[in-house]
């Protein structure tokens, strides 16, 4: 099968070498080459775009990093642009390796509060939540994407309706529900209520994220050729088996995307988690609670917030790196003869 490895390279090299360049101005020659060789222009445009995207997406991060390195006393002295506040390279000569910055912020966040525990809580909650979401949404996505039955459209719309409401709209009833003491739960959970229990974060957040996951999976599952599901069923799977053994792996880009989106959402969730836990890391308070610990009634340790946000984003960066193999796996190619 051919891939995107088209010929621009070869073509570009060839024309580039036999182009007489002596008597042309630099720009003029360049323009002429662009015109005579659109592939090259295309390539340059491509890299320009890529770099522009990179700069715009990464700059705020870079800036956040600079903020983290700024010692607390340096806010407001001069604005932070490309270097952290208080940055003074001349200090290097005096043996100050930090050059007036405060890399210690990245240690302080673990010593002043157990930030790692907060991150762990969020990570665990997000992992469980994501698995739950993907499983439930897979079943529903399969139904909506691949089955024909009466009542499908109304049901699908019903799912969608959930996303019409601001999360706050669910809050008062849910708060009353989750804080009620259920005697049945008493043996499992300390006081029979879900307060301070991870499930009180996982359940509402998963449910509110469910419609998006269902829609994403529906779209991707619908695209898998029927032939493959048929083949799996003949080979001896149930329909559900075919879903998890064939349709899900083949929808890897969609599933991984839904997974990443849901993981990030749950990982960063704050609204429900701040209300369903008492804020102690032992009681499953989430990562964001940890970040916001650095924001007091009056004093806000922006540098520590920045440092902790950077640290908090790391697990997600790793997740994305791992998942991206799946996100970009374009596997269906040549699956069936059509």
């Amino acid at each position, binding site marked *: *099968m051919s891939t995107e490895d088209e010929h621009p390279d070869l073509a570009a090299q060839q024309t580039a070498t036999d182009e007489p360049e002596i008597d042309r101005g630099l720009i003029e020659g360049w323009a002429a080459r662009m015109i005579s060789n659109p592939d090259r222009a295309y390539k340059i445009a491509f890299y320009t775009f890529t770099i522009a995207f990179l700069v715009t997406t990464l700059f705020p991060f870079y800036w956040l990093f600079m903020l983290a390195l700024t010692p607390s006393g340096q806010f407001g002295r001069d604005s932070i642009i490309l270097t952290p506040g208080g940055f003074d390279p001349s200090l290097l000569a005096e043996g100050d390796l930090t050059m007036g910055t405060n890399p210690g912020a990245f240690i302080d966040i673990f010593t002043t509060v157990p930030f790692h525990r907060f991150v762990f809580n969020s990570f665990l909650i997000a992992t469980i939540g994501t698995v739950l979401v993907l499983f439930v949404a897979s079943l529903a996505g399969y139904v909506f994407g691949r089955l024909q039955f009466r009542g499908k459209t109304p049901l699908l719309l019903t799912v969608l309706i959930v996303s019409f409401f601001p999360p706050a709209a669910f809050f008062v009833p849910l708060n009353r529900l989750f804080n009620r003491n259920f005697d049945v739960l008493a043996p499992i959970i300390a006081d029979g209520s879900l307060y301070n229990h991870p499930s009180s974060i996982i359940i509402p957040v998963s449910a509110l994220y469910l419609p998006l996951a269902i829609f994403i999976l529906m779209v991707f599952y619908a695209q898998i*050729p029927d*032939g*493959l599901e*048929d*083949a*799996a*069923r*003949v*080979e*001896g*799977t*149930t*329909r559900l*088996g075919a879903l998890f053994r*064939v349709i899900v*792996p*083949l929808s*890897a880009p969609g599933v991984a995307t839904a997974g990443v989106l849901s993981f990030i959402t749950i990982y960063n969730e704050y609204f429900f988690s701040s209300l369903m836990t008492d804020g102690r890391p032992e009681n499953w308070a989430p990562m964001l609670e940890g970040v916001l610990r650095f924001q007091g009634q009056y004093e806000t340790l922006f540098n520590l917030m920045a440092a902790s946000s950077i640290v908090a984003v790391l697990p997600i960066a790793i997740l994305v790196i791992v998942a991206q193999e799946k996100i970009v796996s374009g*596997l*269906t*190619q*040549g*699956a*069936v*003869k*059509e």
Partner: protein
Amino acid sequence: MANVKLENITKRYEDVTAVDNMNLDVEHGEFITLVGPSGCGKSTTMETIAGLTLPTEGTIEIGGRDVTNLPPKDRGISMVFQNIALFPHMDVYDNISFGLRLRKYDQEEVDRRVEEAADIVQLEGMMDRMPSEMSGGQRQRVAIARAIVRDPDVFLMDEPLANLDAELKVHMRTQLQRLHKKLDTTIIYVTHDQAQAMTMSNRIAVIDAGELQQVAAPLECYNNPNNLFVAGFIGSPAMNFENGEITEDGFTSKHITVDFDPAAHGVDVGQQVTLGVRPEDVHLERDQSSAAAATRTFNVVTDVLEPMGDELFVYLLMARDVEASAEGRGEGQLLMNLGPDEDIDEDQDISVVFDREKIHLFDTNTGDAIVHGLQPKSVPEP
């Protein structure tokens, strides 16, 4: 015992009836081939048997059990799909062993069977290729291996050899026949390849527009086709047809007359009939000895020659004034089949005879066969 029984199976899509009230009884251990024009409903029939499509009406039995509502996995079948349908995310080994792994066979057994199947389809050493890295024929062989690696009661094979070269086709043909004998399974097969249909099957089921036309042994269909459709469909190149009328003396058309006793053949004088004769039953006058009973001689003109290496197809015009229709054989055109070295040219006047015993008569209006082979004439020709 794994007989397969279709009873009144009908499958309707929105605007097409893909399968129309089909009744088919496949014996245990039988090798039956479904043939028919493209879009006639062969694949749909297979899918219904497999349980992948629910029939709109009718019931299906496999091994005496009503399976109409059973899921595919409980029907004891395996299937080669026309569209191949390899799992793109699995390598060859995983594709082939998929069904076995589902059934939790132990690793050794899986390996052994996969190796055996790969051997049969000549795919040794490709075990870790992905489908996207294989040629069309290789993919098809993986699909076959995936089906034969298990030993189900019924094999459904939809065009399993379409992308294979002649040699491999012959090889696979033999292998499938051996497998059939060895495993004592029932095989339902779809092919467009006459050679496969003729050589492999116990019976052929000829389908047209979703309706069963004839179910019989291959030679039976070839020699005694039920109707015009079967006659035209079975045999390649197809039978020659000539529309005409029954006269007192036999058959008369614009170009030819063949004389026989209408009464003795169950036709009425004046009846519109179509006469059919296969290309190999048209002989040069000088070879007329090879016909069991030659008709009178017809003078024809050669049109196009198609040398095939092992044989030579000669298109004939029954008269100089016949328009050579390029769209297959038209009225007044005739095809004959000669040895490869026959010394013949285009646009040459020659004389041919038909083999009387191989002449078929059909009712032009209903298409039903009337007679296969003309009886010797009661009154000897002068």
